[in-house]
């Protein structure tokens, strides 16, 4: 990739257009209840976790994600529902994912504290 004189990556001519984080495709097969969302600057890390949460929603009849091309950092998330706006499903899933992660974060903090209290002699050795 092109490198400037300072050693940092030079922006492509096309990259200058500020990309939105979240967009959705338009065309046949896209309406309020069946949408393909395009999330920029994300990969399987978020895509797979988000898809798993969306699939658990009983209102969703189809959900899948894909990375259209490995050289472009974006994912397409397709959600098909029955009479529930797809944006709402996405928003609910993100909230649930965030809540789950915050819960896990707290669990880990508690567990680390519990372990450190249960093993104080190892602390002194370090």
């Amino acid at each position: 990739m092109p490198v400037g004189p300072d050693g940092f990556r030079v922006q492509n001519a096309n990259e200058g257009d500020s990309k939105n984080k979240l967009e959705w495709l338009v065309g046949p097969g896209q309406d309020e209840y069946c949408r393909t969302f395009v999330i920029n600057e994300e990969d399987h890390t978020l895509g797979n976790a988000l898809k798993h949460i969306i699939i658990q929603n009983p209102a969703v009849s189809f959900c899948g994600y894909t990375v259209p091309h490995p050289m472009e950092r974006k994912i397409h998330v397709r959600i098909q529902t029955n009479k529930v706006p797809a944006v709402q499903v996405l928003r609910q899933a993100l909230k649930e994912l965030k809540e789950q992660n915050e819960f896990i974060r707290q669990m880990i903090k508690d567990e680390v504290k519990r372990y450190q209290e249960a093993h104080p002699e190892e602390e002194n050795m370090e």
Partner: protein
Amino acid sequence: MSSGKIVLKEFQLDQEPGSPVTSKKKKNKDKSPEEKYAGCKIEIINMDDRDLEIDFIGFHISLVNAYRRIVLAEVATMAIEKVYMYNNTSIVQDEVLAHRLGLVPLKVDPRFFEFRNKDETEWGAQDSVKYELKVKCSKKPGAAPDETDPDNLYVNRKVLSSSLKWVPLGNQTDIFQEANMQPLHQDILLAKMNSGHEIILEVYAVKGIGSDHAKFQPGLSWYRLLPEIELTREVEGEQAVLLQKCFSPGVIEINPTPEGKKVAKVVDARNDACSRNVFQYDSIKDSVKLTRKPDHVIFYIESHSALKSFEILEESLNIMIGKCDTLLTEIDKYTDTEAEK
């Protein structure tokens, strides 16, 4: 109840019907987090500053994989990025030496620093750390005339990472102590020199992430699913000894029964490496059922940066929550504009 366990057969992997509780569709409305995740546990098996072995029980594997990916690609560390070479008469080429310097792990805590701007030309105190290396190799004055060991003949024959001296920028002396700005290991060999060679250079370390360059990875992280071994029939005598050899040490124990037979028993399947060696031997092929529990993940982190192992895990969780937050604000932008219409 059918649990969707993964069965390891001789030439294939099968999955039992059913799925672990986490994957079923549920009506999650109005449940508090404690109720939703009642069956889920996190247990630390082993922990110190460097290593962490932690069990995620009841969580879906896509979540744990996300943490692993974030540790490798998005948790930030400090590493040397720019090398200003003033003099290098050693036999190690400039670019090779610069590459090696980049890979030296530093003890600098990345949470005190910001990411450097792309178009920044100055090295500021809030985003870079400066080191210098000035080493000259010369003959040792008091060496014996027939000395052959080059370490005794010359001073500074080996350039180690301990020779990197921190040069504070701006107000860094108020915030940091020298002991916390050193390379993680003092005995990393950077270059070897002979008499008369000299290396003088200045380096700047910046904050970066693993997806940019592997030198910015804070550590290793990997996971495996909990193995389970079930004996489908009694295995005794010579077959028991053979069975014990097929698995990792400590997994199968041979106990004598009151009748005098020696019978194999599964003690602890956790440490098994799942090599499926047992399928090599026709006599005991049918005596075991090897499975993996899909919702019990054994997660490992090894740190080789300033962050401790559990701090790396906490950072990756923060980053995951940050991703969700960014997207939620984006969605709210759209729903707000739609509501205005």
